[in-house]
């Protein structure tokens, strides 16, 4: 068993403390913006569980996100505000249920085939909301009454939603950190490194992988619920493969195999996007923001094979010209 290093603990405490204090100095736009990033961070964490810790590259995470979001809208009563106490678990359950279905079938395949089967199931979910009366077509559906309108935790207030999201971000992080240290998490790490060996030593790996897949889907559903409540609106684009792809990019950019990598990746990706889109810095060139983002990503791959999480080591190496031995590693 391994103990968390002081550097990482300090980083996490500073990170979450910074998020907790941020609304004190930020305007309305900033609060909404960071809420959005935190939701993506939860989503990235859910994918990190699969990709970074089990070695299952899921290219359909957006479906579970979308099901959580559509669940929040479709299950809410038309003319009143629902209580999130039952609505949130219902959305998580709906996403987890679809994950059970998708996982049970797609885990029969491996490698690139697994990537494509998860994509296929996500596309099916996409077309269900896109082309059937259930999902309101391309226009999407509105959530007229946000959950908890008359209660103490009124999620229609941006600050309340911000802290609500932050609590769930911290909860997700801690939950996954504990999960990965448990017997279950060790088994997942074993599957990632050498599944044949796990099978040979008597682990039937399928239920472990399926359980991880369902957990991941459920957490993605949680993120979807939060997103629907934040925007008060859902549309099929939430389930498109572009989002699944962007999520994969986030966690690879941040650094695979580390939960912090997912956090850093989600924040870095969206900040970079906003940075290159900013008119103030790039003027009229800002409409070509993808060029800067693309070049930054290529530079990251070239210089930081471990992802952004390897940045401190890289700087250290540049400054002192020596290779610091990395003593801590998650898995």
């Amino acid at each position, binding site marked *: 068993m391994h103990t968390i290093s002081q550097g990482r603990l300090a980083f996490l405490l500073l990170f979450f403390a910074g998020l907790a204090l941020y609304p004190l100095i930020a305007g309305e736009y900033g609060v909404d913006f960071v809420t959005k990033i935190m939701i993506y961070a939860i989503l990235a964490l859910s994918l990190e569980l699969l990709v970074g810790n089990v070695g299952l590259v899921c290219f359909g995470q957006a479906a579970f996100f979308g099901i959580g979001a559509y669940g929040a809208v479709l299950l809410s009563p038309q003319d009143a505000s629902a209580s999130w106490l039952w609505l949130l678990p219902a959305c998580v359950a709906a996403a987890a249920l679809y994950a059970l279905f998708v996982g049970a079938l797609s885990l029969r395949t491996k490698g*690139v085939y697994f990537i*494509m089967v998860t*994509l296929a199931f996500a596309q*099916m979910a996409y077309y269900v909301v*896109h082309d059937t009366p259930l999902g309101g077509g391309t226009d999407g559906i509105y959530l007229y009454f946000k959950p908890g309108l008359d209660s103490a935790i009124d999620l229609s207030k941006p600050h309340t939603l911000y802290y609500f999201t932050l609590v769930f971000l911290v909860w997700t992080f801690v939950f996954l950190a504990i999960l990965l240290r448990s017997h279950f998490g060790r088994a997942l790490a074993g599957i990632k490194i050498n599944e044949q060996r796990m099978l040979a030593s008597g682990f039937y790996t399928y239920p472990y992988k399926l359980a991880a897949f369902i957990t991941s889907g459920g957490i993605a559903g949680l993120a979807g619920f939060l997103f629907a409540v934040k925007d008060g609106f859902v549309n099929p684009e939430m389930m498109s493969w572009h989002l699944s792809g962007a999520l*994969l990019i986030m966690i*690879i950019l941040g650094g695979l195999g580390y939960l912090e990598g997912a956090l850093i990746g989600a924040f870095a990706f969206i900040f970079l996007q906003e940075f290159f889109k900013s008119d103030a810095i790039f003027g009229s060139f800002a409409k070509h923001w*993808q060029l800067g983002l693309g070049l930054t*990503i290529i530079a990251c791959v070239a210089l930081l094979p471990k992802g952004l999480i390897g940045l401190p080591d890289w700087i250290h190496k540049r400054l002192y010209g020596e290779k610091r031995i990395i003593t801590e590693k998650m898995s």
Partner: protein
Amino acid sequence: MDLSTFLIQCLNALQYGLLLYLVAMGLTLIFGIMGVINLAHGSFYMIGAYMAFALAPMVGGNFYLTLILGVVLAVVLGYVLEWAFFSYLYDRDHLQQVLMTYGLILVFEELRSILVGDDVHGIQPPELLAGTLPLGDIMTYPVYRLFVSGMCILLALGMYYVFSRTRLGMMIRAGSVNREMVQSLGIDIQFLYRVVFAAGVAIAVLAGMLAAPISSVYPGMGNQVLIICFVVVVIGGIGSIRGAFFAALLIGFVDTFGKVLVPEASGVLAYVLMALILLWKPNGLFKAG
């Protein structure tokens, strides 16, 4: 559906499937032989379509000269890209390749936007091929689509010949099985990879140029084709050129007839098909080899 409609849809399906095959073949070659997942492959298709639009004025609007010029440029582009970016990726994790090629997609998309702009363009087929052939009493069929199908078949046959009958093809096949062994036999594998990559890019660009008069030219057309080509590659079995051929035709027919028979579900049919096939055969229809 009467006979002539059916025939026309068959021709459409064939033409679409063959075009998909051209793009998917490059993808499966680069993956099967070099072990690189190249997300930017769809961008080459997009680049091709825009070349058909942007290069035409330079050669006086001559369609065939445009094709030749485009292919030459594509070979150069592929050669340089392999040297500058992809040659560093062989030893890396697949997901690092995904990240890098995703970055390349963004760069290509923006360079296209800076150089040519974001407008949708229609392209006229050359005069000789602009006509239609009568089919049955009232139906006609555009000659250009037949030309595209013919070109695709010629290319497919040519590639098949190079791969299975020539010394170059033999070296490439050997290189995909064991890189080090081929190297130790005194074959310049680095150069071989560069040739394969350049060929893959050139074929995708050519597919884009051929498709331009049919599908028109629009931003984001690369991503659309990329994802469906991955479906083709996976159904056929990764690395299998024969598999890609049959899978591309299968998708072509399913997609075309899906649009006619069940328009409301046409978008999802290809994915349902892929899921079913992979659940039945987890390694695709044709295993590479």
